[in-house]
Structure formats: structure tokens, C-alpha cells
């Protein structure tokens, strides 16, 4: 049996409810980390962990993180796609923990695409 006690879960419920008003209005951004075999072998889990850590630290409530399968560009893994509401998705390639943290700060939080790490725009449809 899990060691998480009913008290722990109650506390989490309280904490969550106390910040609930901040979460209204749906999500503003979605980040998808590619978790196919090539991505995982190249370090996608660490990228995802760093991203979750950034979200926790920044206390943003309107960013969704999810995973997807192989994007077909195995040599450019780890990859992630950032989608800001009403904007075209941007694919980032050859990521590591440091790069995804920068992308989170600059693109997800401040709306500025990190050109240096992005896959050339428009080429998403090429494969």
C-alpha cells in the first residue's frame, strides 16, 4: 500500500483549493515533450523533469505539459513543441535541461521564441 496518508491527501486538497481562483480560465500554453524511443534514449525524461520543475517554481497554473510519441526526426531529439494560445506551434530540437528551462522562461512565460533552439519555422510539415 502507498504511504501517502489520508491526511497528506487532505492537505493537498486544501492547498489546491486555496489557489483555485488562479487556475480559472483554462490553459494559455501547452508544452509537448516527445517521448518516443529515440527521444527517451537522448534524454527526454530529464527535459520533462526540468520542465515540471520550472512550472512548480514559477507557480504558473495555466501551462499544460504533455507527452507524445516519436516525431520522426530521431537525430534531433530530444524535442518539444510549445503552443501558445492563438499562435503557431514552435518545435524545439536537441534539447537538454538548460535549454528547456530557457525556453520556459523566455517563450512560455514571456512569449519570445528562442530562435536558436527552434526547428526552422514551417518545416514541421516537411515530414
Amino acid at each position, binding site marked *: *500500500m*502507498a*504511504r*501517502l496518508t*489520508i491526511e*497528506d*491527501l487532505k492537505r*493537498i*486538497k486544501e*492547498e*489546491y483549493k486555496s489557489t483555485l481562483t488562479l487556475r480559472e480560465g483554462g490553459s494559455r500554453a501547452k508544452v509537448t*515533450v516527445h*517521448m*518516443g*524511443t*529515440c527521444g*527517451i*534514449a537522448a534524454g527526454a*525524461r530529464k527535459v*520533462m*523533469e526540468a520542465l*515540471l520543475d520550472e*512550472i*512548480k517554481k514559477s507557480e504558473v497554473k495555466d501551462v499544460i*505539459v*504533455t*507527452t507524445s*510519441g*516519436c516525431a520522426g526526426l530521431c537525430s534531433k531529439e530530444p524535442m518539444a513543441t510549445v503552443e501558445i494560445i492563438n499562435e503557431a506551434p514552435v518545435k524545439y530540437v536537441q534539447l537538454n535541461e538548460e535549454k528547456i528551462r530557457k525556453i520556459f522562461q523566455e517563450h512560455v512565460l514571456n512569449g519570445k521564441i528562442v530562435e536558436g533552439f527552434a526547428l526552422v519555422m514551417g518545416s514541421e510539415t516537411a515530414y
Partner: protein
Amino acid sequence: MEDISLHILDVVENSVDAGARRIEILLAEDASADLLLLEIKDDGKGMDEETIRLVTDPFFTTKTVRRIGLGLPFLKQAAEECSGGFSISSEKGRGTTVSASFKRSHIDRKPLGDVGATMMVLIAGNPDIDFLFHYRRDDYDYKLDTREIRDELDGVPMNSPEVLKALRKDIDKGLGAEENQMEETHG
């Protein structure tokens, strides 16, 4: 893949892709039998005979047939490299079970790695899927069922940072509980 926790992540992602709603992961260490067993069971769309045959064909002969993917052949190879075994049982429309066993003391047996990180990433990325994580080490038994936790949390999403943090802590504790015994049996 560097370690077994990354194989788990990879194989469970297959279950996610197959539309599973519940995924059960068993990791069992048996010192007396010198065995490490990994079993991943899902209720996803399953595979037909042909697909099973293709994914379990030896790695190097896949050149002659259409290679589907790398995830399962990698796990099979990792198991066979340390006198273990690999099998898939699947039924179309019902689900799939992937099993791999390893000779625990084998020099080439990959380390477990960060299983807590794998579980956290899986739950964070798929908050609506039920995960059962079951870890056994000889007589020691640890289970975490996100279904039960979800029911208790009524409405708090599984991927909220508070929940993820608590789950991570719980799993790490669950895995490390018998640390001292682990050292002993390794020697």
C-alpha cells in the same frame, strides 16, 4: 537505453499510444532466485499476431522485414544480454502484457535507474490514465495506485505540482525502504 527505468518509460509510452486507460507496472526483485522481473500490462487496443511477430523478431534480422519500432526490440535485447527472457501476450481490443526478465546479478544487467522519475513523468504527462506501480523485493511489497489517490483527491488533477511532489516522495520511499537489505544482498 541506459537503465531499466528508461525502458519502463518507453514501453509504457506504447501503452499510452495504444489508448490504455489503466496501466499496471510490476517490478519484482527476487534475490534467492537471482531474478529481476518487469511486467507492463495495459488495457489498450492490443496487437495482432503479425505485429507481435514483427516486434519480437531478433533485432538484427529486422532488416529483411519492415521494422516497426525500436522500443520493444531494445528491451528484448537488454533482457537477453543478461540471460533473461522476453515475451508479449496481446489480444486485439483487450490489451497487452509485455514481460522481461533479467538475471539480477549478471554483469550486463542494467541498473534500475530513477524509477521515481519515470513514474512522475508518466503521471504528469497522462493525468487521466490510472497507473498501478507495484514493486516487490523478496518479502517487501509496495503498491501505488493512482486510481485510489484520484478518488481521495476528488477533483484535484493528478498533474498538479502538489500531487506530483507527494507521489514522487511516496514512490521514492517505497523503492528505497529496504535499502540496507539491498546492499547486503548485492555483496
